[in-house]
C-alpha cells in the first residue's frame, strides 16, 4: 500500500453537491486521493458514486464545492482546459469498456495518444506495448465487436494507461464480466497502475473488487464515509 505521505493530495473533492433535476446525487461528499494509491468508492446503486467520479474527473461540474487537482481548481478551468487535463493526466475505464466500435483494438488504445497529437506510428507502437502488457496483443487488429467482454475490458485498461496518467478512473470496470475475467482485469489494472505510479479511483459495488484497493470510501445518499482497509 502506498502511504499518503505527501502534504497535499493529488486530487480532492471537497463538500461536493450535485443535483439532477430534483434528485440530489451528491450532498456534501468529500474525498482526497494521494498519488499512487488505489481508492475504492463503494455504494449502492443510485448512491451517487458515479457522479462523484465524474465530478472528480472534471467531466461534470459540481453545483457546489470544489475539486482540486494538484492545487488547481477544476471548476475554474475552461472546458478546453479540463479536456486537455483528461487527455494528458487522467485515464478512464468504464463498465462496458466503451471502446469505439469502428476502430481496431490497437487503434482504440492509440486513440488518447493521437488525440494528444502523438504521431500515428509512435502512438500505435506504444499502444501495442500496452496490449502486450495486458495480454491482449493477439486481438490488436480486431474490432471490439469481435472480441470477448474480458478482452474488451483489458483493451480498455490499456487505453486508460497508455498516456501514463496520474489518475485512472474506473467505473464498475468488472460490472459486465464473470468473476474469473473480473479478477483478471482487476489484477492487470492494479498491477499496471502501481507499476506506472498512477492513482486509481475505483467505483464499484462489489466487495471483492474493492478488495484490490488501499482505501475504501462508502457513498450513501450523496455523502462519503471513509474506511481504511487492512494492509494486504
Amino acid at each position: 500500500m502506498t502511504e499518503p505521505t505527501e502534504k497535499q493530495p493529488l486530487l480532492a473533492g471537497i463538500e461536493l453537491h450535485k443535483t439532477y433535476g430534483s434528485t440530489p446525487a451528491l450532498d456534501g461528499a468529500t474525498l482526497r486521493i494521494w498519488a499512487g494509491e488505489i481508492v475504492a468508492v463503494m455504494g449502492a446503486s443510485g448512491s451517487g458514486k458515479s457522479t462523484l467520479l465524474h465530478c472528480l474527473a472534471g467531466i461534470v461540474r459540481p453545483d457546489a464545492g470544489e475539486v482540486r487537482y494538484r492545487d488547481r481548481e477544476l471548476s475554474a478551468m475552461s472546458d478546453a482546459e479540463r479536456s486537455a487535463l483528461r487527455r494528458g493526466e487522467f485515464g478512464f475505464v468504464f463498465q462496458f469498456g466503451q471502446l469505439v466500435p469502428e476502430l481496431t483494438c490497437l487503434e482504440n488504445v492509440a486513440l488518447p495518444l493521437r488525440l494528444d497529437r502523438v504521431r500515428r506510428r509512435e502512438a500505435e507502437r506504444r499502444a501495442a506495448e500496452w496490449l502486450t502488457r495486458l495480454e491482449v496483443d493477439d486481438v490488436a487488429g480486431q474490432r471490439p465487436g469481435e472480441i470477448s467482454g474480458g478482452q474488451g475490458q483489458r483493451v480498455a485498461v490499456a487505453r486508460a494507461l497508455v498516456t501514463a496518467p496520474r489518475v485512472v478512473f474506473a467505473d464498475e470496470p468488472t460490472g459486465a464480466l464473470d468473476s474469473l475475467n473480473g479478477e483478471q482485469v482487476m489484477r492487470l489494472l492494479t498491477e499496471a497502475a502501481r507499476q506506472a505510479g498512477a492513482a486509481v479511483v475505483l467505483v464499484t459495488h462489489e466487495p471483492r473488487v474493492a478488495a484490490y484497493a488501499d482505501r475504501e470510501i462508502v457513498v450513501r445518499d450523496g455523502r462519503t464515509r471513509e474506511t481504511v482497509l487492512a494492509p494486504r
Partner: protein
Amino acid sequence: MSGRIDRQQTGTGWIADLALGARLVFTGGRNGLVRTLMAAIGVGLGVALLLGGTSISTMLGARDDRTAARDDQFIGAPEPPPGDRTLLVANVDTEYHERGIRGRMLQPEGTRAPVPPGLTALPRPGELFVSPALGRLLATGEGALLGHRLAQPVAGTIGAEGLSGPGEYAFYLGTDQLEPGVTGVRIDHFGSDSTREGLDPVLLLLVLIIFVVLLLPIAVFIAAAARFGGENRDRRLAALRLVGADGVMTRRIAAGEALLGAVLGLAFGALFFLIGRQLVEGITLWDISVYARDIRPSPALAALIALVVPGTAIVVAQLALRRVVIEPLGVVRRSTGRRRRLWWRLALPIGGLVLLLPLLGGIDQTGRTFNEAQVITGVVLLLVGVAALLPWLVEAVVRRLHGGSVSWQLAIRRLQLDSETSARLVSGVAVAVAGGIALQMLFSGIQHNYVLSSGQDVDRAQVAVIGNRIVDGVDVGPLNERLRAVPGVRHVFGTLDTDLAAVGTPREADGYRPSNALRIGDCAVLRELATLDTCTDGDVFALAGNGEENANLPPLPTAGQRVELGDRTVTGWTVPAGIRTATARPDPIGREVTGILATPGAVEPGRLAGLSAFIYLAVDRSQPETLELIRNAVTTLGPGMQVQTLDATYRVNRFTQIRRGLFIGVLATLLLLGASLLVGTLEQLRERRRMLAVLVAFGTRRSTLSWSVLWQTAVPILLGLVLAIVIGTALGTTLLAMVGEPLHLDWPGLAGMSGIAAAVVLLVTAFSLPALWRLLRPNGLRTE
C-alpha cells in the same frame, strides 16, 4: 416487453404480428415514438412533394382554361362588324418592378357588349377594376409609382375566374377614347377554344426527364426515411426473440413497425400537402401564381402513392434485415460479411442505356412523336443505377482508405463498419445531381434553338418607347423633355414615322392602303437608321432597297413627286428635289428600316397627327426606378404607348420557364434530401450518444468530433458526386444524341449542381453540430 408471442401461423397471426410491430412504436418509449415521428415526417415530406407533382397537370389545365376563357386576341380571325354586342379592347399590358401587369381598356359599342370573366359588368369610362393582388399593391407604398399610371378610382375587383392565379396583376379600365382599328380591337366575345400551347417533342422530353429527376430522388428519400430508427428497432426485435418470437415473426413485426411509420407518413404527407396548398396562394414566381383549388392530385396517381409508399417501407425494412442477424441476446450486423455484388448494380444503368440508344437522333422539333414510356424507363434505370452503385462504390473506396487524422480515422472506420446507412442517405442527393447534370447538359446543348439573338443593340439604347399611330406631332417635344427629365435617362432620341403614299392611292378591300414609311428625325437620329455621309436640316434620304422587305411595297416616290402623308388624316407633301439615296442600318431595336428619312426642316412633324413614335433611351441601369418613371412619363400620351427594355437575346418563354423550374425543383429536392441527411445524421449521433460521451470523458476535442461528422457525411457525398457526374454525363450525352445535338459538356451547370450538393453537406453538418455538442455533454455517461 409484455405479451405472449404464441400465435398461429395464419392470417390472424400475420395481422397480430403486424399489429404488435405497430404497437411497439407507441409502447417503446419516447425515443421510439420520436424516431417514428421523424420517419413519418420524412416520408410525409416526400409524399407531399409527390402529391404536388401529380397535381401539376390539373393545375396547369385549370390555369389554361381560365386564360383561354378571357382571351380577346383572335389573330387571323375577321373583325366583327360594329353592333350592340361588340366591344373595343385595347391591350395596355405594362410592367412594374419586372412583374408583368395584364391590362385591358374596354369600350362597349352597345348595351349587350360581352363582359370578360371575373367582372359582373363592364367598367364605365374612367372606372378601374383590379385583381386583388394589384389592389393590394396599389394600396401600399410599394405601388406608389404604379399609382401614377393607374390613377383612376378602383371601382371593383376582378374575380378569380378572370385571373390566371391569385398573384396575377391585372386590371380592366373603362374608356370612351378608343378608336376602332387604331387604338382598339373590336370583339364580340371573350374566350377561345384553347390557348394551350403544345410542347414540341424536345421540350416534352425535357419535361418528362425533369419529372423523373425530381421525383426519383424523393422516392429514394422515402426509402431512406423509412429506415430512420433502424438500430433501435433491431434491439427491440432482439428482445422479442428472447421472449420467443421466431425469425419469420420478427420480420413481420418489423414490417408492422415500418408500416405504421409509412401510414403515418402518408397522413403527414396529406397534411403537409393541404397546408402547402394553402400557403402556395401567397407565392408568385416569375409572374406565375396558383389557386389552392387548382392543385388537385390525379386520383389514380394519389391511389398509387398510397399503395406504393407503405409497400416500399415494408420492402426496405425487410431488405435492411437481410444484413442483420437478430438473436435473442442481441443484434449482429453482417458488416464484414460478403461484399456487395456489382453485376446487377451495373445492369441497371446499362439497361437504361440500351433502352435509350434506339432513340438516338430520333427526337427533334419537327413534331415527330417518341415512345415516352421507353424514355422514362431508360432514364429511371440510369438514375436508379446511381442509387444502386453508390453503396458498392462507397464500400469499395472506404475499404482502401487508411491513415489520416483522428477525426478522419473515426469517420472512415465508421464508414468501413457501416457504409450502408450513409450511402443510403446520400443516394438521393446523388440521383438528383446526376439528373440535374444530365438536364443541364441537355439545356445548354439545345439552348441555341430557344435562345435567339434579338438583334437589339443595347450599346446604343437600353429602353425603347413605341407608340403606334397614336402620337400627334405636337406632343412629341414635351414628351421628349419629360423623358430627359427622368433621373437616370442619359440620352433620348427617336423618329416619328408616318405613311407615305402617292396621291390618289386607293385602299384595298380590307382598308389597307399600300404605302411607304416616312421617318422624321434630326441628322443625329437619322444616322442611327442609315449611313449618311453628310446631313443638314432640310435633307431627305431615300433608303436603298433592302430586298425582301421592300418587295411588297410600292416604289419610293422620286424628287418632285406629290405624295400624301398619314393614314386617316392625310397631309400633302412634295418630295424635295435634293433627295439623296442612303443605305439603311438597323436601329437600336434591330429594325432595318425602309422608306424615306426626312429631317424636321424638310417635314415639320408638328403639323402631323396619328404618327408612330420610336423613341430610344440610353439609361443608367443602376438607378432602380428609372424604368418605372419612364413608363409613368409616357402614360400622358395614352395607354397605347409601350415601353420596352432592350436585350441582346430573347428566349422562348416556355424554355426559360422550364429551365427556371428545373433549378427551383433541383434546389427544393436537394434541400429535402439535405433534411433527410440531417435526420439520418442526428439519428446516428443519438445512437452513439454514450460512445461520444466516453470520447469526451477522455478528452476528445469537440472539433475532432465535429470534423469526424463532416467527413462521415462528406466522403459518401463526394463519392456520390463522382458517380453522379459520371452517370449524369453519360445520360446527358445520350439525351443530346437523342435530340441530334453534339456533345457539349456544361461545366458551369456541372459545377453549379456539385456546388449545391456540397452546400447541402455543409448545411447538414452545420445543423447537426448543435445536436452533437449537446450530446457531448458528460450527462451521456449517466446510467442511473
